[in-house]
């Protein structure tokens, strides 16, 4: 087995890492977190680097790279600013949905602009119980009703909405101007700069041009989303570890740097082990997709493991930083608030426990 990144993947990693270090400064993060503002300038810079359509075909301005590359980009950005990481994920996921399920006209109309970040995209999946999202065919189109939790809410130009039409999963492209839609910004525990919103569709009328292809493989989108959330978790987990190593080496108590104490060492070791494990699971799931093998179960396992791990890592990171870790002087408290979302987005931990078991017993 070759666990090494390819040359292209290494270049992408290097580029994303350099960008994150140089452009995503603590001041910019603080500003966006405080104003709860979508980091548009940073997103535009990511688009300039070709990261707005990482896996999209070059005929639509995409970078035509693989799922592993998408995973790398999300991890590297999330390591520094998880809100931007999830913005990047949602946008790329929308682009992938258009490429996979868009009609020829829709791809022509939207995909090239999306891939260069000229149009910002987001995805509205089905709610947990598939109850509120319903689409109905009417005379000259469709009417959709439902509620979706989304990121990029206030800034998105395109919403890829999944709904249920005649008992079957269907997808629609909503443009910003569509009537019968309401976007409410929601205050959350973390991911404060992700423009986390509630998209309410109340009698939202769409024309026949807005419905995507007939055969919607929503599981593929959910699975890629889970790989992305998993990558986000790994990024945060690595940041927690890096911060904890640095702090524990310089903080002196009882005449020694605290990294010398066994209980600190135990936490550092667990963080390293969890981050490594999550990384291997996640990259494996991405690799399987790139090999055109089934990857849904692996994506879910990766996400389940990565999300639980990153929450533990973040709590340990705060613990290692002591009283200082409880203040906003250090980033670890934000890492924790951001990390917790990974156990809830694209399905909860509890849901995954049932889903994976069902694949084992069928």
């Amino acid at each position, binding site marked *: 087995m070759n666990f090494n990144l390819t040359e292209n993947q290494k270049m992408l990693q290097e580029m994303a890492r350099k960008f994150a270090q140089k452009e995503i400064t603590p001041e910019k993060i603080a500003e966006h977190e405080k104003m709860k503002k979508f980091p548009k300038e940073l997103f535009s810079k990511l688009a300039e680097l070709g990261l707005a359509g990482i896996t999209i075909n070059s005929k639509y301005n995409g970078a035509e790279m693989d799922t592993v590359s998408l995973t790398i980009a999300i991890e590297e950005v999330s390591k520094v600013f998880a809100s931007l990481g999830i913005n990047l994920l949602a946008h790329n996921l929308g682009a992938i949905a258009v490429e996979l399920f868009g009609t020829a006209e829709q791809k022509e109309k939207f995909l090239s602009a999306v891939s260069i970040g000229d149009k910002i995209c987001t995805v509205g999946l089905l709610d947990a119980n598939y109850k509120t999202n319903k689409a109905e065919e009417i005379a000259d189109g469709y009417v959709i009703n439902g509620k979706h939790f989304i990121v990029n809410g206030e800034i998105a130009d395109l919403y890829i909405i999944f709904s249920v039409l005649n008992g079957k999963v269907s997808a629609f492209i909503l443009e910003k101007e569509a009537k019968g839609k309401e976007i409410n910004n929601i205050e959350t525990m973390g991911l404060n700069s992700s423009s986390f919103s509630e998209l309410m569709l109340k009698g939202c009328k769409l024309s026949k041009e807005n419905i995507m292809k007939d055969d919607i493989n929503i599981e593929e989108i959910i699975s890629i989303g889970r790989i992305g959330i998993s990558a986000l978790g790994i990024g945060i987990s690595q940041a927690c570890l890096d911060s904890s190593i640095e702090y524990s080496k310089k903080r002196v108590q*009882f005449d020694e740097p605290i990294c010398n104490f066994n209980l600190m060492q135990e936490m550092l070791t667990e963080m390293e082990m969890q981050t490594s494990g999550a990384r291997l699971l996640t990259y494996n799931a991405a690799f399987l997709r790139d090999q055109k093998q089934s990857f849904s179960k692996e994506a879910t396992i990766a996400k389940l493991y990565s999300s639980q791990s990153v929450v533990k890592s973040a709590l340990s990171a705060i613990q290692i930083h002591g*009283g200082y870790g409880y203040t906003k002087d250090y980033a670890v408290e934000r890492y924790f608030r951001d990390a917790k979302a990974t156990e809830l987005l694209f399905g909860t931990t509890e849901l995954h426990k*049932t889903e994976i078991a069902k694949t084992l017993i069928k």
Partner: protein
Amino acid sequence: MEELENFRAFVREFAESEVKPIAAQIDKTGEFPSEIIKKMGKLGLLGIPFSKEYGGTGCDNIRYAIGVEEISRVCGSTGITMAAHTSLGTFPIYAFGTEEQKKKYVTRLASGACLGAFGLTEPNAGSDAAGTQTTAVLKDGHYVLNGSKIFITSASIAEIFVITAVTDKSKGVHGISGFIVEKGTKGFSIGKHEDKLGLRGSNTCEFSFEGCIIPKEALLGELGQGFKVFMKTLDGGRVSIGAMALGIAQGALDESVKFVKQNKEVSNNQIIKKMLADMATEISTARFLVYHAATLEDKGKTVTKESAMAKLYASAVAMRASNWAIQIHGIEGYTKKYPVERFIRDAKLTEIGEGTSEIQRLVIARELLKS
């Protein structure tokens, strides 16, 4: 016991009707709940374990634990303000003060006329609490203080402060002494307000002394007895933080049960039922540990091991319970529509303040390994 349950009902009624409605707001704005604190003073909730002779409510440590628990159940910020004021700000003077000091200060504190604060922690004295660098030099019949303290609860609101300072560097831990300092003393200034993960309605600041002159009578306890003063204070403080954590955990359970009852689809899931069951069981265990420590205090026993166990366990339970509570609420548990995301942010401090969980474990192990 019925009387204890009557006391609990009394505090709960106040907590539900007066404190709960402002909890989310003060978390958002960081505004200190002065009105609530005033009301608590009037109800006797700021001096529960102190005798009426000194302005207290004349109750015991177990009622004090219940009081902190019930307030924290709805609002961690108000809970910690109450606990820090009582166990850290008032207790040291009550336990170690002269008759004069008790009459002068405990009466004001226990009645809630003003708040008290405890200045132990310093930039270089965190877990290593005995690494005190603040100095108190006896000069011309008074003490001159120099140094700084950090992470002090209610520092910019309190009027009476108990602090530790080195009076004799050559004596190590036995060269630390306790002092009472009043707000507004020249050379005593409040510094940075901390912006925190949780407990955002509680006030946490730095303060510093620059040539601050205090009278000789400000010495609390005997010279060089400071370590004993603060260790005993922390023993009691840990019981109160255990009670605070217990309250937060109970709040998380109550919110979760309420949510599950309103959302039938969630209630069918055994994993959810397991979380509720484990929460309830762990909370019961934590309650026994906290009340046991409080009962021993009421019997005049030293509770070093028991208070460390109570805090260690209850804080871990508060973290698990609030974490599960968010999961039970699903994605909406991550939003500020529900209080559960605030509960875990508040709970995290209980694993750190007044001695980290790691320190609690070392304290317990040390007690076990004593010959």
